[in-house]
């Protein structure tokens, strides 16, 4: 096993750890952190698989995608954090609750 | 000859990094840890950068290395001050024997 493969495996494991956190953890800030970790895992896998090319240089297309992806991810995080603060303002808690049963 | 000196500097730098980490783990309170970390690590980085600058292929590369060290020193010193002052203002008491 060569080193790009190790990093690709790291990518999928990070994705799963993030997904687990997203499902299990309640606090929204932690869900946002989890989404970021999932994103990092996906970026990692893209780039690691792009490194399989036979030539000298790794494939530049995934690199370009990931660079824009990182910048978009940070702006999405900022939006998510604002939404979370808005929710706390409205409901007083940073946890998503099921809708009350009697009101459906 | 140059190789020997840069090796010397690099190893000495690594030693300082080790000392910094030991200080971070072993010292009893925030202020002493702050002191261990900022001093030892910045000297360690300085020694390493000296060792690497001796190997640099051109003057501009050596200049960039020194610039990096200067920036780390500036940031490290300011941040150490800000954290120590913040801790004092928030009532973290310095450790006494």
């Amino acid at each position, binding site marked *: 096993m060569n080193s790009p493969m190790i990093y690709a495996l790291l990518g999928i494991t990070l994705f799963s*750890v993030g997904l687990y956190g997203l499902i299990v953890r309640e606090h929204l800030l932690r869900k946002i952190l989890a989404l970021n970790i999932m994103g990092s895992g996906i970026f990692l896998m893209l780039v690691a698989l792009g490194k399989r090319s036979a030539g000298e240089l790794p494939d530049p297309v995934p690199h370009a995608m990931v660079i824009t992806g990182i910048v978009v991810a940070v702006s999405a995080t900022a939006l998510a954090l604002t939404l979370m603060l808005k929710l706390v303002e409205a409901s007083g808690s940073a946890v998503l609750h099921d809708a009350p049963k009697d009101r459906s | 000859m140059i190789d020997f000196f840069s090796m010397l500097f690099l190893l000495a730098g690594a030693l300082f990094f080790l000392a910094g980490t030991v200080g971070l783990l072993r010292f009893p309170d925030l202020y002493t840890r702050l002191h261990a970390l900022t001093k030892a690590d910045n000297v360690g980085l300085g020694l390493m950068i000296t060792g690497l600058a001796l190997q640099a292929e051109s003057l501009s590369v050596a200049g960039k290395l020194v610039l990096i060290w200067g920036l780390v020193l500036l940031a490290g010193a300011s941040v150490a001050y800000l954290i120590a002052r913040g801790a004092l203002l928030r009532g973290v008491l310095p450790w006494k024997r």
Partner: protein
Amino acid sequence: MEALDFALGLFDILLVFLVLSLAWLVMSSEDLFRAIVLFVAFGLLMALVWVRLEAPDIALAEAAIGAGLTGALMMAALDRLSSVKPIQKVAASAQRKQLSLSSKVLPLIALVLIVLGLGYALLSLPEIADGLTPNVKENMAQSGVKNPVTAVLLNFRGYDTLLEMVVLLLALLSVWSLGGERKLSPRSTNPILGSLCRVLVPVLILVSCYLLWVGADAPGGAFQAGSVLGAAGVLLLLSGWHVEQKYLLWPLRFILILGSGVFIIMAAVLLLIQGGLLTYPVAQAGWMILLLESAATLSIGATLAALFLGGVPKSRVDQ
């Protein structure tokens, strides 16, 4: 050579182990602040991972964003979380129930299965696959730049980057419409913080210009330069930098739309002249890309700093 490969292999394994355990600790930390600090450390190590994958372009972006901006964003959010005053208080703590053991274990089992499945798929991929490398190499001569990543970003897939700029703008618009007005924080009286900013901000701006310029033939470019510029903006906001209200209205909005605007105008003009979206004439490609990148850098920097503020900026000095 053998020993060198062995040492690099050890480095890789230790790095993978560290990144993985950091990710796990971020998720399992009970203390929110601890989770955020660990996440910042995670970002730092991700930059090292990009270096090991021979992706210095990404390492630059990650160093500016993962290690700097994201941490600052999270910390500001944590601060607001503890100071926000809820309009109406739902009986949250009463409603909160402990997760049962099965609802923790079942996802874990499902995720182990997902890892195994994805891992199997990964390992059954062909060892060598060129992807789009040959296509990029073939067309490099016509791209007007020497850095393949910049060529992909601004030339071959320029329309992607155009839309990315619009996405950034949309994120900011949503934050502005949700976050309400936000006053700039008062000027810090701390002399050390002041002098740190006075030295660091000009250097940040200089490095940003350097990254923008060098992006044509070495790792660097608009996104990295913009992130560094955004960090300069965050530092200024933190130290209580004052701007008059009149500059926060139209001049700020002009800078924010500059990137997308120049991109769209350029695309439309080229569509009319060349008959294709963002198909540059070969001789002019170099300076056109530089123009686009400069505008994009300014917009990205301003957008990231504005996102950090989390609302429509309002000067403290009211007219």
